[in-house]
Protein backbone atom coordinates (compact mmCIF):
# COMPACT_ATOMS: atom_id res chain seq x y z
CA UNK A 1 0.00 0.00 0.00
CA UNK A 2 1.43 3.48 -0.84
CA UNK A 3 2.25 5.81 2.00
CA UNK A 4 2.37 9.55 2.49
CA UNK A 5 5.15 11.18 4.46
CA UNK A 6 3.50 14.10 6.21
CA UNK A 7 5.83 17.07 6.83
CA UNK A 8 6.36 18.20 10.38
CA UNK A 9 4.46 21.43 9.69
CA UNK A 10 1.24 19.52 8.87
CA UNK A 11 1.32 16.86 11.59
CA UNK A 12 -1.08 18.80 13.74
CA UNK A 13 -3.69 17.30 11.38
CA UNK A 14 -2.47 13.73 11.84
CA UNK A 15 -2.09 13.67 15.60
CA UNK A 16 1.68 13.73 15.14
CA UNK A 17 1.83 10.73 12.79
CA UNK A 18 4.49 11.10 10.11
CA UNK A 19 3.74 8.18 7.79
CA UNK A 20 0.20 7.38 6.70
CA UNK A 21 -0.65 4.35 4.58
CA UNK A 22 -3.21 5.11 1.89
CA UNK A 23 -5.13 2.93 -0.55
CA UNK A 24 -4.94 4.92 -3.78
CA UNK A 25 -3.80 4.60 -7.38
CA UNK A 26 -2.86 8.25 -8.03
CA UNK A 27 -1.43 11.10 -6.02
CA UNK A 28 -4.72 12.97 -6.33
CA UNK A 29 -6.63 10.01 -4.88
CA UNK A 30 -4.05 9.61 -2.14
CA UNK A 31 -4.51 13.21 -1.00
CA UNK A 32 -8.29 12.77 -1.05
CA UNK A 33 -7.98 9.62 1.07
CA UNK A 34 -5.60 11.37 3.43
CA UNK A 35 -8.15 14.14 3.87
CA UNK A 36 -10.85 11.59 4.69
CA UNK A 37 -8.66 10.20 7.45
CA UNK A 38 -7.44 13.60 8.61
CA UNK A 39 -9.94 16.28 7.58
CA UNK A 40 -8.55 19.65 6.60
CA UNK A 41 -5.08 18.57 5.59
CA UNK A 42 -5.75 18.57 1.83
CA UNK A 43 -6.75 22.23 1.97
CA UNK A 44 -3.25 23.00 3.24
CA UNK A 45 -1.71 21.27 0.21
CA UNK A 46 -4.16 22.08 -2.59
CA UNK A 47 -5.64 25.44 -3.55
CA UNK A 48 -9.27 26.19 -4.33
CA UNK A 49 -8.54 25.34 -7.95
CA UNK A 50 -7.40 21.86 -6.96
CA UNK A 51 -3.78 22.51 -7.94
CA UNK A 52 -0.82 22.06 -5.61
CA UNK A 53 -0.15 25.31 -3.75
CA UNK A 54 2.82 27.23 -5.13
CA UNK A 55 4.91 26.90 -1.97
CA UNK A 56 4.63 23.10 -1.88
CA UNK A 57 6.39 20.39 -3.90
CA UNK A 58 5.27 16.77 -3.96
CA UNK A 59 7.54 13.84 -4.72
CA UNK A 60 6.84 10.18 -5.39
CA UNK A 61 10.00 8.48 -4.25
CA UNK A 62 12.81 10.59 -5.73
CA UNK A 63 10.73 12.14 -8.50
CA UNK A 64 8.86 15.44 -8.55
CA UNK A 65 5.26 14.74 -9.59
CA UNK A 66 5.72 17.47 -12.20
CA UNK A 67 7.76 14.87 -14.09
CA UNK A 68 5.21 12.09 -13.52
CA UNK A 69 1.97 13.61 -14.69
CA UNK A 70 1.26 15.92 -11.79
CA UNK A 71 -1.50 14.93 -9.39
CA UNK A 72 -2.47 12.15 -11.79
CA UNK A 73 0.88 10.43 -11.24
CA UNK A 74 0.32 6.69 -10.85
CA UNK A 75 1.21 4.95 -7.61
CA UNK A 76 2.37 1.44 -6.88
CA UNK A 77 2.05 -0.34 -3.56
CA UNK A 78 5.60 0.51 -2.54
CA UNK A 79 5.56 4.20 -3.42
CA UNK A 80 6.14 6.85 -0.80
CA UNK A 81 4.70 10.31 -1.40
CA UNK A 82 6.63 13.18 0.19
CA UNK A 83 5.13 16.63 0.72
CA UNK A 84 7.80 19.33 1.02
CA UNK A 85 6.58 22.83 1.88
CA UNK A 86 8.47 26.08 1.95
CA UNK A 87 8.51 27.19 5.57
CA UNK A 88 9.36 30.37 7.41
CA UNK A 89 10.54 30.46 10.98
CA UNK A 90 13.35 30.95 13.38
CA UNK A 91 13.62 34.62 14.15
CA UNK A 92 10.42 36.11 15.48
CA UNK A 93 8.92 36.25 18.95
Amino acid sequence: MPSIRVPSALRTFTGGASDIEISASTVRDALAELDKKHPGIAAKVLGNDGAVKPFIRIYVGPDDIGDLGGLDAKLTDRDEISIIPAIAGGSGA
Partner: protein
Amino acid sequence: MITRTLIVGAGGLGGPIAFALGAAKHELTIVDHDSVEVSNLHRQIQYTALDLGEPKAARLAGEVVARGGTARGVVQQWSPEVADELGADVDLIVDASDHPTTKFGVADWAVANGRTYVIAAALRYGGNVFAGAPGVACYRCLFEDPTDAPTCAEAGVLGPVVGAIGGVAAALALGLANGDRTYAGALLAFDDLRKLAEPRVVRFAPRRDCPACARAPISPFAAQPVRVAENA
Protein backbone atom coordinates in the same frame (compact mmCIF):
# COMPACT_ATOMS: atom_id res chain seq x y z
CA MET B 1 40.29 37.27 1.18
CA ILE B 2 37.62 38.71 3.42
CA THR B 3 34.03 37.63 2.75
CA ARG B 4 31.43 40.33 3.28
CA THR B 5 28.18 38.75 4.43
CA LEU B 6 24.76 40.24 4.99
CA ILE B 7 22.61 38.39 7.54
CA VAL B 8 18.88 39.11 7.49
CA GLY B 9 17.38 38.33 10.89
CA ALA B 10 19.03 38.35 14.32
CA GLY B 11 16.82 35.78 16.03
CA GLY B 12 17.15 32.08 16.70
CA LEU B 13 18.68 31.31 13.31
CA GLY B 14 20.63 34.53 12.98
CA GLY B 15 22.47 34.03 16.28
CA PRO B 16 24.35 30.82 15.49
CA ILE B 17 24.86 31.88 11.88
CA ALA B 18 26.44 35.19 12.96
CA PHE B 19 28.67 33.52 15.56
CA ALA B 20 29.91 30.90 13.09
CA LEU B 21 30.54 33.31 10.23
CA GLY B 22 32.02 35.91 12.55
CA ALA B 23 34.45 33.32 13.90
CA ALA B 24 35.38 32.48 10.31
CA LYS B 25 36.33 36.14 9.85
CA HIS B 26 33.44 37.11 7.64
CA GLU B 27 32.76 40.84 7.77
CA LEU B 28 29.12 40.88 8.86
CA THR B 29 26.24 43.27 8.39
CA ILE B 30 23.23 42.15 10.45
CA VAL B 31 19.79 43.57 9.63
CA ASP B 32 16.81 43.26 11.96
CA HIS B 33 14.20 45.79 13.05
CA ASP B 34 13.05 43.89 16.12
CA SER B 35 13.91 44.21 19.82
CA VAL B 36 14.62 41.47 22.33
CA GLU B 37 11.54 40.18 24.17
CA VAL B 38 11.32 37.76 27.05
CA SER B 39 9.54 35.22 24.82
CA ASN B 40 12.65 35.11 22.59
CA LEU B 41 15.11 33.99 25.23
CA HIS B 42 14.47 30.26 25.17
CA ARG B 43 15.68 29.88 21.59
CA GLN B 44 17.60 33.08 20.84
CA ILE B 45 20.32 32.14 23.26
CA GLN B 46 22.68 34.90 22.19
CA TYR B 47 20.55 37.22 24.34
CA THR B 48 20.02 37.43 28.08
CA ALA B 49 17.48 39.17 30.28
CA LEU B 50 19.85 42.14 30.33
CA ASP B 51 19.13 42.65 26.62
CA LEU B 52 15.35 42.99 26.95
CA GLY B 53 14.11 45.92 24.91
CA GLU B 54 17.42 46.33 23.08
CA PRO B 55 17.57 46.17 19.25
CA LYS B 56 18.54 42.67 18.20
CA ALA B 57 20.76 43.68 15.29
CA ALA B 58 22.94 45.92 17.44
CA ARG B 59 23.12 43.43 20.31
CA LEU B 60 24.02 40.49 18.08
CA ALA B 61 26.65 42.53 16.27
CA GLY B 62 28.06 43.47 19.67
CA GLU B 63 28.26 39.81 20.69
CA VAL B 64 30.09 38.93 17.47
CA VAL B 65 32.59 41.74 18.07
CA ALA B 66 33.05 40.62 21.69
CA ARG B 67 34.10 37.22 20.30
CA GLY B 68 36.75 38.77 18.07
CA GLY B 69 34.68 39.14 14.92
CA THR B 70 33.74 42.09 12.74
CA ALA B 71 30.08 43.07 12.58
CA ARG B 72 27.72 46.00 12.44
CA GLY B 73 24.04 45.98 13.26
CA VAL B 74 21.46 47.79 11.17
CA VAL B 75 18.18 48.33 12.99
CA GLN B 76 15.90 48.36 10.00
CA GLN B 77 13.36 46.12 8.33
CA TRP B 78 14.83 44.31 5.36
CA SER B 79 13.57 45.28 1.92
CA PRO B 80 15.08 45.09 -1.55
CA GLU B 81 15.82 48.81 -1.29
CA VAL B 82 17.67 48.28 1.99
CA ALA B 83 19.57 45.43 0.36
CA ASP B 84 20.52 47.70 -2.55
CA GLU B 85 21.89 50.18 -0.02
CA LEU B 86 23.69 47.72 2.23
CA GLY B 87 24.53 44.97 -0.20
CA ALA B 88 26.45 46.75 -2.92
CA ASP B 89 29.73 45.14 -1.88
CA VAL B 90 28.28 42.02 -0.24
CA ASP B 91 29.59 38.63 -1.38
CA LEU B 92 27.03 36.45 0.38
CA ILE B 93 23.56 36.98 1.84
CA VAL B 94 21.99 34.70 4.44
CA ASP B 95 18.29 34.80 5.25
CA ALA B 96 17.49 33.98 8.86
CA SER B 97 14.19 35.80 9.00
CA ASP B 98 10.82 34.58 10.17
CA HIS B 99 8.71 35.79 7.28
CA PRO B 100 8.07 34.01 3.98
CA THR B 101 7.91 37.22 1.97
CA THR B 102 11.34 38.23 3.26
CA LYS B 103 12.81 34.82 2.39
CA PHE B 104 11.59 35.03 -1.18
CA GLY B 105 12.64 38.67 -1.38
CA VAL B 106 16.18 37.85 -0.22
CA ALA B 107 16.42 35.01 -2.72
CA ASP B 108 15.11 37.17 -5.57
CA TRP B 109 17.51 39.99 -4.69
CA ALA B 110 20.47 37.59 -4.57
CA VAL B 111 19.57 36.01 -7.91
CA ALA B 112 19.07 39.39 -9.60
CA ASN B 113 22.43 40.62 -8.27
CA GLY B 114 24.38 37.45 -8.97
CA ARG B 115 25.23 36.69 -5.32
CA THR B 116 25.52 33.42 -3.45
CA TYR B 117 22.86 33.04 -0.76
CA VAL B 118 21.44 30.76 1.88
CA ILE B 119 17.79 30.61 2.95
CA ALA B 120 17.18 29.02 6.35
CA ALA B 121 13.90 28.19 8.07
CA ALA B 122 12.93 26.17 11.14
CA LEU B 123 9.47 25.01 12.11
CA ARG B 124 8.22 22.62 14.79
CA TYR B 125 10.85 19.83 14.83
CA GLY B 126 12.58 20.40 11.50
CA GLY B 127 13.60 22.92 8.92
CA ASN B 128 14.79 23.71 5.43
CA VAL B 129 18.07 25.15 4.26
CA PHE B 130 18.57 26.21 0.64
CA ALA B 131 21.97 27.01 -0.86
CA GLY B 132 21.81 29.36 -3.82
CA ALA B 133 24.45 30.42 -6.31
CA PRO B 134 24.61 32.07 -9.72
CA GLY B 135 23.93 29.72 -12.59
CA VAL B 136 21.75 27.16 -10.78
CA ALA B 137 18.01 26.81 -10.13
CA CYS B 138 16.84 29.28 -7.52
CA TYR B 139 14.59 29.24 -4.46
CA ARG B 140 11.66 30.54 -6.51
CA CYS B 141 12.20 27.82 -9.12
CA LEU B 142 11.39 25.33 -6.36
CA PHE B 143 8.72 27.21 -4.43
CA GLU B 144 6.89 29.58 -6.71
CA ASP B 145 5.08 31.83 -4.25
CA PRO B 146 5.31 32.41 -0.49
CA THR B 147 1.63 33.00 0.15
CA ASP B 148 0.36 30.89 3.06
CA ALA B 149 3.70 29.20 3.76
CA PRO B 150 3.62 27.96 7.35
CA THR B 151 5.39 30.11 9.94
CA CYS B 152 6.64 29.70 13.50
CA ALA B 153 3.90 32.01 14.70
CA GLU B 154 1.35 29.45 13.48
CA ALA B 155 3.04 26.14 14.14
CA GLY B 156 5.69 26.88 16.77
CA VAL B 157 9.25 25.58 16.89
CA LEU B 158 11.31 23.55 19.33
CA GLY B 159 14.10 25.80 20.65
CA PRO B 160 17.11 23.55 19.98
CA VAL B 161 15.90 22.86 16.43
CA VAL B 162 16.49 26.51 15.55
CA GLY B 163 20.10 26.27 16.69
CA ALA B 164 20.65 23.07 14.72
CA ILE B 165 19.21 24.50 11.52
CA GLY B 166 21.22 27.68 12.04
CA GLY B 167 24.36 25.56 12.30
CA VAL B 168 23.60 23.83 9.01
CA ALA B 169 22.90 27.17 7.34
CA ALA B 170 26.24 28.50 8.59
CA ALA B 171 28.08 25.44 7.31
CA LEU B 172 26.53 25.80 3.86
CA ALA B 173 27.31 29.53 3.86
CA LEU B 174 30.95 28.84 4.72
CA GLY B 175 31.09 26.24 1.96
CA LEU B 176 29.66 28.61 -0.64
CA ALA B 177 32.02 31.37 0.48
CA ASN B 178 34.93 28.97 -0.02
CA GLY B 179 33.76 28.01 -3.50
CA ASP B 180 32.23 24.66 -2.54
CA ARG B 181 29.15 24.19 -4.76
CA THR B 182 28.29 20.67 -3.59
CA TYR B 183 24.85 21.80 -2.46
CA ALA B 184 24.45 24.83 -4.72
CA GLY B 185 20.87 24.80 -5.98
CA ALA B 186 19.74 22.15 -3.49
CA LEU B 187 17.29 22.22 -0.61
CA LEU B 188 18.21 20.30 2.53
CA ALA B 189 14.93 19.34 4.20
CA PHE B 190 15.17 18.17 7.81
CA ASP B 191 11.84 16.59 8.65
CA ASP B 192 12.09 15.81 12.36
CA LEU B 193 15.41 16.29 14.12
CA ARG B 194 14.17 14.37 17.16
CA LYS B 195 14.20 11.21 15.04
CA LEU B 196 16.51 11.66 12.07
CA ALA B 197 19.36 14.08 11.57
CA GLU B 198 19.86 13.25 7.89
CA PRO B 199 18.25 15.67 5.46
CA ARG B 200 16.40 14.84 2.31
CA VAL B 201 18.44 16.60 -0.37
CA VAL B 202 16.15 17.97 -3.05
CA ARG B 203 17.76 18.94 -6.34
CA PHE B 204 15.68 20.29 -9.16
CA ALA B 205 15.85 21.85 -12.59
CA PRO B 206 15.44 25.59 -13.14
CA ARG B 207 11.91 26.60 -14.07
CA ARG B 208 11.54 28.13 -17.52
CA ASP B 209 8.98 30.70 -16.37
CA CYS B 210 10.78 31.62 -13.12
CA PRO B 211 10.56 35.43 -12.84
CA ALA B 212 13.65 35.59 -10.61
CA CYS B 213 15.87 33.64 -13.01
CA ALA B 214 14.68 35.86 -15.86
CA ARG B 215 16.58 38.72 -14.16
CA ALA B 216 19.67 36.68 -13.28
CA PRO B 217 22.94 37.92 -14.77
CA ILE B 218 24.06 34.31 -15.14
CA SER B 219 21.38 32.07 -16.63
CA PRO B 220 20.70 28.76 -14.88
CA PHE B 221 19.76 27.18 -18.20
CA ALA B 222 23.30 26.83 -19.42
CA ALA B 223 23.78 23.55 -17.57
CA GLN B 224 20.72 21.94 -16.04
CA PRO B 225 21.13 19.78 -12.94
CA VAL B 226 19.33 16.46 -12.81
CA ARG B 227 15.96 16.63 -11.05
CA VAL B 228 16.26 14.13 -8.24
CA ALA B 229 15.67 13.95 -4.51
CA GLU B 230 17.88 11.81 -2.38
CA ASN B 231 18.91 11.18 1.18
CA ALA B 232 22.25 12.73 2.04
